């Protein structure tokens, strides 16, 4: 039977030759993941199972990244639950301030997730790893607790939707624009319970970082997972990183899809999602005069080195507008160091940016850049729900790093071409 890449990965993790959409399967998890918000609940539930020890101390990955460095006493207590548990269970991989990163930037970088893996995580953006050809999906804390005990979970095999991106992207559009455009077309529940498979020559051309950005936001269309079948680019990216064997799988040519969407992206403009849904998308050129108070460049969506390079290209030789607070958050310590080595941090400092240690912080209104009533932020993050970055009457505009940087310079939503004239 022909299968999609998602179905193939699920089949391999059930010990079956094939699976079909709708089938309920018990799957083996390569790694399971939690963070400082979701792990404390999972740990409490894990203790109640009576299991005692986790199924495999090298495959339970707990990353304190949301409210860390500890933002207040209560979150310090939560993070301590994670830290104490990691120590007590003698987990192989332990991270903390100074070594950690935003989980979905960190784990691919460290080779702890890879092509062909099956990953569940108590964080909705676990779907990011589909960018390197893994099946990865978000769950809640109780599901994580059960998986920490058993190394298994149950899933319904999703139908797949195929998205074919034809053409060539322009210099200021990337993975963020493709996924925002897609969500704008299909809506925030347009892929509910389904797999989003991204293909076509624009995806073949797209960097691995851009693919991670696309898979990251699959959940914003309600999808169970987003995936790009791994190719030579993926292989080059994971080589030298991966700590476990990887499997390169692709969809069969005659695999069955619930729907197929085709887009020509050659003339796609940089996109912005207006408040308060990621589907409320329009080209930045049609944004009108939207003044901003803050620009955030970072997060599991756009906190990787390519994102910082893009932002620096726009910011070089410019200053952030005096009424804009520009906050740059490298996704991991390694990305931070690389940005420093490449001179990007100097560009950011010269532009008047605050450069932060890795954290999810402002993306979810946690800390490090909370908005007051009536304030607006352009952000390279993933959600612009009511109150997402602070006051319920504040607003978040989602965009790519070049748009965020250009908006920081001009003090309003702006196209990068308004700041940089010599785009190649």
């Amino acid at each position, binding site marked *: 039977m022909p299968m999609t890449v998602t179905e193939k990965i699920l089949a391999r993790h059930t010990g079956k030759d094939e699976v079909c959409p709708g089938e309920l399967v018990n799957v083996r998890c390569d790694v399971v993941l939690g963070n400082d918000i979701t792990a404390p*609940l999972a740990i409490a539930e894990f203790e109640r199972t009576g299991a005692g020890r986790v199924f495999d101390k090298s495959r339970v990955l707990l990353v304190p990244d949301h409210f860390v460095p500890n933002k207040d006493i209560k979150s310090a207590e939560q993070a301590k639950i994670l830290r104490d548990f990691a120590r007590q269970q003698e987990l192989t991989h332990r991270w903390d301030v100074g070594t950690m990163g935003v989980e979905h930037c960190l784990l691919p970088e460290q080779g702890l997730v890879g092509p062909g893996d099956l990953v569940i995580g108590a964080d909705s953006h676990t779907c990011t790893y589909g960018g390197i050809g893994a099946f990865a999906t978000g769950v809640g804390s109780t*599901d994580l607790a059960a998986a920490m005990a058993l190394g298994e979970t149950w899933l319904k095999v999703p139908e797949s939707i195929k998205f074919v991106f034809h053409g060539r992207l322009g210099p200021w559009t990337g993975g963020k624009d493709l996924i925002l455009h897609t969500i704008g077309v299909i809506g925030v*529940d347009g892929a509910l319970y389904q797999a989003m498979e991204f293909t076509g020559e624009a995806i073949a051309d797209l960097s691995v970082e851009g693919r991670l950005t696309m898979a990251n936001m699959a959940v914003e269309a309600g999808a169970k997972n987003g995936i790009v079948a791994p190719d030579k680019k993926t292989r080059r990216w994971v080589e030298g990183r991966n700590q476990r064997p990887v499997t390169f799988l692709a969809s069969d040519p005659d695999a069955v899809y619930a729907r197929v969407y085709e887009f020509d992206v050659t003339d796609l403009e940089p996109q912005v999602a207006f408040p308060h849904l990621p589907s409320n998308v329009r080209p930045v050129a049609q944004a009108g005069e939207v003044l901003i108070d803050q620009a955030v460049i970072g997060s599991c969506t756009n906190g990787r080195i390519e994102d910082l390079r893009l932002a620096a290209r726009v910011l070089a030789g410019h200053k952030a507008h005096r009424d804009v607070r520009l906050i740059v958050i490298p996704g991991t310590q390694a990305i931070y160091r690389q940005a420093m080595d490449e001179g990007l941090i100097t560009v950011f400092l010269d532009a008047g940016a605050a450069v932060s240690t890795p954290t999810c912080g402002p993306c979810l209104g946690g800390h490090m850049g909370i908005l007051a009533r009536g304030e607006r932020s352009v952000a390279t993050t993933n959600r612009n729900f009511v109150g*997402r970055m602070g006051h319920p009457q504040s607003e978040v505009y989602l965009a790519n790093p070049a748009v965020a940087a250009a908006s920081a310079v001009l003090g309003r939503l702006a196209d990068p071409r308004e700041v940089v004239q010599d785009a190649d």
Partner: protein
Amino acid sequence: MQIEGQAWCFGDNLDTDRIIPARYLNTSDPKELAAHCMEDADATFASRVAPGDVVVAGRNCGCGSSREHAPLALKAAGVGAVIAPSFARIFFRNSFNIGLPILECPEAAAGIQPGNKVRVDFERGLITDLTTGREYVAQPIPPFMGKIIECGGLINYVRERMGKASTNP
């Protein structure tokens, strides 16, 4: 199992940030979470909601963050059931896992008005708007999932099946 209470209506795409804003996620104590439940959607909700009340939402209910704190906050606030035309998948799983019954029923979600008195019979999947007398039929909750709810969540259900006593979370 049946519950009866007043309806609280919300629109499409009720996200988990609105059910429990992230600024309160520095705790996982259900009582503390309940005190801020729905704060950014209806600031009066937490103080006025009564045990057995029913949240009636629109499409894609519970979208966004995977935070299990969202169904926990609703349950601890006393919400007896959530009715919506469709749910985001993580919220759907989380709700059963922590013992909050939810039902998919587009007709009930469209028909029930705020403040109406509602009765839900989970075994039969029967939703009755006692204010208007209208009845709606949803897919009943299958017995094993009803058992998870009755036990107070998945872990208690697992413990009970393993012959261990339930413990409170």
